[in-house]
């Protein structure tokens, strides 16, 4: 039971992002823009991620020089910056989406922002009052989202395709599609290899690629490419096209469960990395509590400030995703630098890391606003670096007195 529970937790933590509303939208839009190229890109991305995951989670052949070589210094900051900014901006955006889904599908008189705050509040309460059950709830939320999504996808794949031929007018390329495909696998670096299930990273990656391909096929069979490419709610359109109102309800449920699973997982991720980033200090309990509450309060502040009604939020979200892509690439390169210099293994890992790095550059350059995207990403990095330095310096004197 314990082993099954660990595997389920690992799997639920590997797909919290791909089942979230924003990932569903990315899948739909990319299916519309790139068609079959997107499916090929998904398979390529899965291969790249699998190789990277093997390098991260196989603790053998480590160099005696440790992790100080290569991108080691930048990596903790990049990773924490990515997790912090994704948690803040993606959570705020998705909570708004969940609020609208609840209001427009289930209870029209319940205010959408009220539901967004309610959902955030419930997650905070879970972490504060029942921390032992956080992983259990994660598994249930993921399972609920998956059931809703697979119901719609299954119905879409089993029913006759009804999509008329259409084109977006753009010539798709594998090069521009691959970065988005890689994006859907973000979070794989957190799939831990464990003694009970040494192949659990492979299971997680397989789940992500199979789900993404199935969803893409469902989109292409029922919605024309030009509508998909420009739609901000392709998943809801698909559900309505395939199953009518029951489909809308299932997909709205998926949005709500997927949002909750994402926020829950990201809060855990950030907390884990923030505490790891300050390893030399025995952090006081008040700091641990404060560090946990600060981020949800920041998310709530974003909601209250009306950021969800600004186009700026989308730029901030994509800057966060850019940082996450970058930190994945640096993680792979760092893993490569740790391997003993023994031929093909090390070269392969560096090649994979380079592919991820190039994908990050392409993602930036092909975005509609690359300069602000990069600017905000650099800002997040700088703010995180300053935050870490200030926290370390602020806490050390206090601890020295005690």
């Amino acid at each position, binding site marked *: 039971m314990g082993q099954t529970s660990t595997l389920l937790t690992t799997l639920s933590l590997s797909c919290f992002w791909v089942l979230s509303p924003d990932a569903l939208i990315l899948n739909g839009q990319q299916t519309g823009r790139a068609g079959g190229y997107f499916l090929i890109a998904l398979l390529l991305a899965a291969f790249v991620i699998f190789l990277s995951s093997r390098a991260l989670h196989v603790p053998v052949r480590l160099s005696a020089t440790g992790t100080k070589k290569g991108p080691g210094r930048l990596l903790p900051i990049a990773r924490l910056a990515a997790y912090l900014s994704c948690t803040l901006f993606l959570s705020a955006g998705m909570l708004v989406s969940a609020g*609208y889904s609840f209001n427009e599908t289930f209870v029209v008189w319940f205010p959408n922002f009220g539901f967004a705050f309610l959902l955030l509040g419930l997650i905070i309460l879970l972490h504060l009052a029942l921390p032992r059950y956080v992983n259990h709830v994660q598994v249930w939320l993921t399972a609920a989202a998956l059931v809703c999504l697979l119901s719609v996808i299954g119905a879409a794949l089993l029913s006759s395709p009804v999509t008329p031929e259409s084109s977006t007018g753009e010539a798709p390329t594998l090069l521009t599609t691959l970065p988005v495909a890689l994006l859907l696998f973000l979070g794989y670096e957190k799939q831990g290899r464990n003694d009970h299930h040494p192949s659990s990273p492979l299971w997680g990656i397989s789940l992500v690629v199979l789900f993404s391909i199935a969803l893409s096929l469902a989109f292409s069979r029922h919605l024309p490419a030009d509508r998909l490419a420009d739609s901000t709610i392709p998943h809801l359109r698909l559900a309505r096209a395939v199953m009518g109102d029951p489909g809308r309800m299932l997909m709205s449920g998926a949005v709500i469960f997927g949002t909750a699973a994402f926020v829950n997982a990201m809060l855990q991720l950030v907390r884990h990395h923030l505490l790891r980033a300050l390893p030399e200090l025995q952090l006081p309990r008040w700091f641990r509590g404060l560090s946990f509450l600060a981020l949800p309060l920041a998310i709530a502040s974003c909601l209250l400030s*009306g950021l*969800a*009604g600004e186009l700026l939020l989308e730029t901030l979200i994509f800057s966060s995703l850019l940082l996450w892509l970058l930190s994945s690439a640096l993680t792979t390169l760092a893993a490569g630098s740790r391997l003993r210099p023994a031929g093909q293994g090390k070269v392969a890992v560096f090649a994979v890391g380079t592919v991820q790095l190039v994908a990050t550059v392409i993602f930036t350059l092909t975005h509609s606003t690359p300069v602000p995207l990069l600017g905000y990403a650099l800002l997040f990095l700088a703010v995180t670096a300053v935050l870490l330095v200030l926290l370390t310096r602020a806490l050390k004197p206090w601890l020295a007195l005690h």
Partner: protein
Amino acid sequence: MKRVMLCLLGLLFAIAPLSTVMAVELMTKEELKAQLGSDDLVIVDVRAGRDWSTSELKIKGALRVEPGDLGQLATGSKDKVYVFYCA
């Protein structure tokens, strides 16, 4: 609060060129529903960001204009009724 202020500012900017003195009236959804399809009615969706992009419900035939771009409506017909709606 900021969004409400922006909506109001946009409304003011669009209406002011159309007449020298005009009170901004509110319309109930029943009144709007009764007029849907009329050639003299222009519905303007001024929702922005995720208020618009994540909402599945959009009024058919509504013109979508960002709150900061409402000035473009100043060139529109002065004989029509403009109805602005937001989140």
